[in-house]
C-alpha cells in the first residue's frame, strides 16, 4: 500500500472507474447507420438516430455478441436475461430525449481484471458490471458566436460501460487498470481502445480515507480521455480532498471535470443538481434473452488473452514476468515476438524485441504494426549471429540499417562488408600487428597485468573493424600472449 502523507498522517485513495468503450461494429446499437470515425458531420445518421417520429430501435446482434465476448474476456457472469432501459434527460445532442441503456439488469455481471504492476507484481480488481448503451451526439460550441452546432454521427453508436469495484488505491493502479482493460478489449477485437478518438473514455470516482476507515465521500471526474490524465486527475483530486478534510471541511458528493490545460479538477454539478433520470424499461424493446449455446459458441472463439499468454510465455519461453508483460501488453507485440522466436533462442528473441526494436520504435514514435523491421528480418538477423556470420556488436549496426531502410539483414551485411572474419590466418596477422605495435603492453601483460587482455581484444577488433569473430580473437590472442 502506498499512502499519501497529509498534515494529519497517512491517507489512502480509493478509486473506482467507469470506462466507456465504443464497440467495434460497422453499424450502430439500434440502427443500421455507419460508425466510422472522422466522417462529415451528420453524414452517418439514420431517422432512428435523429429520433424522428415513429422510428423504433432494433437491437444490432453484432453489438450484443461483442458485449458477451467482452464479458467472457473479463471472466464475468453473462446474464442470459437482460433489459434495456430509458435514461431520460434533455440535451441538444440527445435526440430522443433519453438514452437507451441498461440499468437494473445489465448483460454482464461480476468479473475481474488482473493488473500487472511495474514492480512485476499483480493485483486483481473486481469488475462490477458491463452494460450496453447508446452514445449521444456531439455539441460543437466553437463554430458560431451564439449558436451550438450538433453532429449526430456518434448518436446511437454502441458503448460498453464497464464499471469497476472501488478496488484501486493509487493512480498507478488506475493507470494499469485502464491499460490492461484496453489490452483485453483489443485482444478481443471488441473496442479499438483509441482514447484520442474518444472510443474509450473514463469516469473516475475518487475518495480518500484514513487507512482502515470506512469509504469517504466520492467525487466523480467525468470524461477523462487519456491514461495520463486519469492518473493526474486522481493525484490532484485526492490532494484536494485531503486538504479540505484536514482544514476541517467536508467533501460534497459531486461531478467534476478534469481541466486539461490548468491540470485541476473543477466542479461540474453538485448532487442537488444531479438529474433524476427516471429510468424505466424501454417499451420499444423486449427483454434480451440469450441462448446459452450461442454464448458457448462465442466462448469457443475467444482468442488467447494477455494473462494466459503471459503465463505461457513464462513457462514455454522461460521469459521473465517483466519481459512477458511487456510483450503481451499488445497482441501485435506478442505475435511479433512469437514470429521472431519461432525456431530460435526465445530469450535472445525477447531481448532483441523488447530492447532494440521497442527502443527504436519508441524513439520514432511508431507502433509495432508500422515497424520497418519485419519479424522475419529480425529473425534473420538473429540467425546471422547464431551462425557466426556477424557478431552481436555488428548486429546492432546492422539493425540500425534495417530500421532505416527496411532491408534484409543479409543484404546489409553483404553491402557493407560486415561479414565476420573467421579466417584464422587473417585474424592471426591482425593480432601479430597489434602485438608488435604494443610490445610494452605485451611485456606488462606477461608480468601479470591480466587486465590488459581486454585492451588487446579491443585493438584487434578495431583493426578488423569489428568483423573478427570474437571467440577466435580471444582464443588466438591468448595463445600468442602466453606464448
Amino acid at each position, binding site marked *: 500500500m502506498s499512502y499519501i502523507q497529509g498534515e494529519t498522517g497517512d491517507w489512502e485513495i480509493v478509486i473506482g472507474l467507469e470506462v466507456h468503450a465504443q464497440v467495434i461494429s460497422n453499424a450502430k446499437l439500434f440502427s443500421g447507420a455507419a460508425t466510422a470515425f472522422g466522417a462529415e458531420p451528420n453524414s452517418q445518421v439514420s431517422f432512428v438516430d435523429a429520433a424522428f417520429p*415513429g422510428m423504433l430501435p432494433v437491437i444490432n446482434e453484432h453489438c450484443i455478441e461483442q458485449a458477451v465476448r467482452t464479458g467472457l474476456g473479463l471472466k464475468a457472469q453473462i446474464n442470459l436475461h437482460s433489459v434495456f432501459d430509458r435514461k431520460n434527460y434533455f440535451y441538444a445532442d440527445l435526440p430522443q430525449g433519453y438514452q437507451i441503456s441498461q440499468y437494473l439488469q445489465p448483460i454482464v455481471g461480476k468479473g475481474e481484471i488482473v493488473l500487472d504492476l511495474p514492480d512485476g507484481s499483480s493485483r486483481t480488481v473486481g469488475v462490477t458490471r458491463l452494460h450496453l448503451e447508446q452514445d449521444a451526439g456531439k455539441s460543437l460550441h466553437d463554430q458560431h458566436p451564439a449558436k451550438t452546432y450538433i453532429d449526430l454521427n456518434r448518436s446511437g453508436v454502441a458503448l460498453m460501460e464497464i464499471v469497476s469495484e472501488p478496488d484501486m488505491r493509487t493512480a498507478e493502479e488506475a493507470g494499469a487498470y485502464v491499460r490492461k482493460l484496453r489490452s483485453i478489449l483489443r485482444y478481443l477485437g471488441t473496442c479499438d481502445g483509441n482514447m484520442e478518438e474518444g472510443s474509450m473514455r473514463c469516469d473516475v470516482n475518487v475518495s480518500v480515507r484514513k487507512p482502515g476507515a470506512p469509504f469517504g465521500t466520492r467525487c466523480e471526474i467525468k470524461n477523462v480521455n487519456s491514461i495520463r490524465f486519469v492518473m493526474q486527475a486522481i493525484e490532484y483530486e485526492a490532494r484536494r480532498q485531503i486538504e479540505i478534510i484536514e482544514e476541517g471541511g467536508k467533501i460534497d458528493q459531486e461531478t467534476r471535470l478534469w481541466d486539461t490545460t490548468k491540470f485541476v479538477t473543477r466542479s461540474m454539478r453538485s448532487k442537488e443538481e444531479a438529474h433524476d433520470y427516471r429510468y424505466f424499461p424501454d417499451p420499444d424493446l423486449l427483454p434480451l434473452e440469450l441462448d446459452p449455446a450461442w454464448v458457448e459458441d462465442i466462448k469457443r472463439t475467444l482468442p488467447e488473452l494477455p494473462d494466459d499468454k503471459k503465463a505461457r510465455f513464462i513457462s514455454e519461453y522461460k521469459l521473465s514476468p517483466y519481459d512477458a508483460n511487456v510483450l503481451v501488453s499488445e497482441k501485435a507485440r506478442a505475435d511479433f515476438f512469437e514470429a521472431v522466436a519461432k525456431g530460435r533462442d526465445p530469450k535472445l528473441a525477447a531481448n532483441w524485441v523488447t530492447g532494440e526494436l521497442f527502443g527504436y520504435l519508441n524513439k520514432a514514435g511508431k507502433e509495432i504494426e508500422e515497424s520497418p523491421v519485419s519479424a522475419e528480418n529480425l529473425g534473420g538477423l538473429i540467425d546471422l549471429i547464431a551462425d557466426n556470420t556477424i557478431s552481436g556488436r555488428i548486429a546492432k549496426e546492422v539493425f540500425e540499417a534495417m530500421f532505416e531502410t527496411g532491408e534484409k539483414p543479409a543484404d546489409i551485411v553483404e553491402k557493407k562488408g560486415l561479414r565476420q572474419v573467421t579466417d584464422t590466418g587473417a585474424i592471426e596477422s591482425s593480432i601479430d600487428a597489434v602485438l608488435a605495435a604494443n610490445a610494452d603492453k605485451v611485456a606488462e601483460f606477461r608480468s601479470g597485468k591480466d587486465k590488459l587482455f581486454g585492451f588487446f581484444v579491443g585493438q584487434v577488433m578495431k583493426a578488423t573493424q569489428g568483423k573478427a569473430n570474437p571467440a577466435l580473437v580471444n582464443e588466438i590472442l591468448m595463445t600468442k600472449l602466453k606464448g
Partner: protein
Amino acid sequence: MTGLTHLTMAAALDGLAKKEFTAVELTEAHVKAVETIRPLNAFITETPEQALAMAKASDARRAKGEAGPMEGLPIAVKDLFCTKGVPTTAASHILDGFKPEYESTVTSNLWRDGAVMLGKVNLDEFAMGSANITSYHGNVVSPWSPGEAGNWSRQLVPGGSSGGSAAAVAARAALGATGTDTGGSIRQPAAFTGIVGIKPTYGRCSRWGVVAFASSLDQAGPMTRTVEDAAIMLRSMCGFDPKDSTSVDLPVPDFRAALTGDIRGLKVGIPKEYRVEGMPAEIAAIWDQGIEWLKQAGAEPVEISLPHTKYALATYYIVAPAEASSNLARYDGLRYGLRVEGASLKDMYENTRGAGFGKEVRRRILIGTYVLSAGYYDAYYNKARQVRTRIKWDFDEAFKQCDVILTPTAPSTAFAIGEKMDDPIQMYLNDVFTVPASLAGLPGMSVPAGVGSDGLPLGLQLLGRPFDEETVLRVGQVIEKAAAVTATPPFMA
C-alpha cells in the same frame, strides 16, 4: 354515382371486379364526399390528387390482373401514421411543417394491397383523448349531431382519439380508416359513431412509422362499417415487421374466411366486474340483449370474474403517461416541427414545448414525469406494472373458461362537446371497459348493437385470446347480423 360512397368494402371490391365502376370513379365519389363532410372537421389534410393518381394506378393493376386484396378501395389515414411526403401532424402544433421522408409499415401494407389514400384524418393531440377535442386543428363533430351541418343544434363528439377516422367512415366519406388504440381509441369512437373498430392483439400491426403515444399499448387497427370490411382491412394492415421489435412473427390469417356465422358451442364470458355501479340502464340492456343474441346463435354464456378490473383505469393512467412523457421528449424544436427560439437551450425547450403541446398533452407529460420520478417510481409506475401483470393473469384465467368475452364498449352514448370537460377524470372514465384489454394486449372489437333512447349508437365489445382475432370477428359478425342496425347518421356525404 353517389351510391358508391355508401358501399361496403366487400361490395366495392365486387363492383370493381365486375367492372361496374372503376377505382377512379369510386375515388372521385369519395374525394367529393370528403369535401362534403368538411363541416365535421374530420380531415386535417385532404390528398385528392394523390388519391386519384393512386386510383389510376390501381385500375391499371387490375387491368393487368394484378389486383390486391384491397385494390381500389379509398380509405382515410389517421394523422398519426407517417406518410411519405404528406404532412403528418399527430394533431399537434409541435409537428408544424413535418413531412416524413418515410411511410409507416401499416400504410405501406395497405398501399401494397391496392388501397387508395383520401387524406389524413383528425384525432386527439398525440392520440390523447376520448372525444377528439384536444386536436390543435380543432375538434371533430360527430355526423350524428342533430341540426344542420355547420349549424348544429348540439355538437356531439365522435369519441376519441380516432375521432376523425370514425366520423369520416360513419359519414360515408371513406370506406374505412386506420385507427390506433392505446386505451380504447378505436373501439370507443366506433361505438359512438355506429361503426366497427377492431384493435388487434398487441404485436399484430407494426408500430414502425406510427407516432408513438404509449409504446407498450399502442396498436393500429381498422375502422369500417361492417365486420367483414374490418376483416378485409385488418388482413392488409397486419404482418410481422423486423423494424418493430415488438411485432410478432406469426402468419396472418385470412380473417374473412373466419366469418362463418357458426358460433355453436362457443363459450362467451360475461365479466361480473363490468356491471359497474351507476351503469346506465340502456347500456345494461344492450349488453343483456347481446348475450341473448349469442345464446340464440348457439353460444353458451358463462359468468367470469376479472377481479382486478377496478384497478385497470388507474393502472392505465400511470403506464400510458409514463411512456408518453418519455416518447414525447424528442419534440424539442431542434430537428423538425415547431421551434420557438429562446435565449438559452432551456428557454428554447420551454418556449417550444410550452407553445407546441396542448393542455391535455402537457397534463399527461407531467403525470408521466411524476410517476417515474425518484421517490415515486415504486409507489406508482412499478406498482402499476405489477397490477398490469395481475390484469393479464385475470384474462388468462378467464380464457380457461370461455372463448370470447362480451362487454359494453363505452359506459354511455356520445356526449356533447362541452360536457365532461371540466373534470379530466370524468373523461378518463370513458375508457373503463376498453382499457383492461389494452393493458393485457388482447384483441378487442366494438360492433354496432343498437341505438339508445337518444337515438345514438351503442356498441358492444368482444375480447379474445391473444392472436385470436378470428373468433372475435366471427362472434362480432353474429351480433352485427342479429342487431341489424339500420339507423344512419343524420349527416352523410
